[in-house]
């Protein structure tokens, strides 16, 4: 990243960055945010992420952006996966590798959410 040399440049960068956070990057139709704090990892988040990447590979679906983030604090529901698609942000809780594969197949690729596992849904 280039050096920011003034307060004005910082402000400009903020406005640009804000836009790109809501828009998709390049080809990506879907954005997946994986909660990767220590608590999530202790609950198996790494295996869940592996399953997601593997399932996407198997199904040859590449219009996806995967981001690893920190935890929201709802430890009871970790590992947490957030799927951003079609203008909505769907938060799934207590995700295990097998569930993650289903989420990829049904929601990420086909746009159908799996309601039993949804904690919350926000319009983006």
């Amino acid at each position, binding site marked *: 990243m280039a050096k920011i040399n003034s307060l004005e440049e910082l402000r400009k960068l903020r406005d640009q960055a804000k836009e790109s956070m809501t828009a998709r990057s390049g080809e990506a139709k879907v954005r997946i945010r994986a909660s990767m704090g*220590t*608590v999530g*990892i*202790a*609950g198996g988040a790494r295996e869940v992420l592996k399953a997601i990447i593997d399932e996407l590979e198997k199904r040859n679906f590449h219009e996806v952006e995967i981001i690893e983030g920190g935890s929201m604090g709802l*430890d*009871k529901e*970790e590992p947490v996966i957030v799927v951003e698609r079609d203008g909505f942000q769907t938060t799934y809780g207590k995700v295990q590798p097998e569930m993650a594969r289903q989420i990829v197949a049904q929601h990420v690729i086909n746009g159908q959410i799996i309601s039993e596992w949804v904690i919350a849904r926000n319009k983006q």
Partner: protein
Amino acid sequence: MSDKKSLIEKLHDIQDHHPDHHYLPENEMMTLAESDRVPPSKVFGVATFYTMFSTKPRGKHIIRICENQTCHMAAAKDMINHLQDLLDIEIGETTADGLFTLELSSCLGMCSVAPSMMIDEMPFGNLTYEKIDKIIQQLKGGTR
């Protein structure tokens, strides 16, 4: 002066250079004392103050299982006993094959997934006997 590595960091470095035993060999501590021009007692004093340093060789994988408040309430004791039985060692000891050292840890901050433990830098929560067995098995087989 503040840009040089502190004694603690140098000790961490020495210990990290022994990934199979995670310890501070006596001769290397003496060398450090000489090169830093401090009395050996200072180096030893620091090394023995901090619980993450060991002056005796340990195993390849350090298992730190939490025994503090919340984990205690979530039956950590049972997990600790299970590990002792499974590995056939007591707290503070290393398995005969040199693979595992079992240590008690103070709070690891995984209270919401208690009982919990860390093996090297990997965290594990919601422990059950089966989970522990599987993890140890995978580490033995090198599949983790």
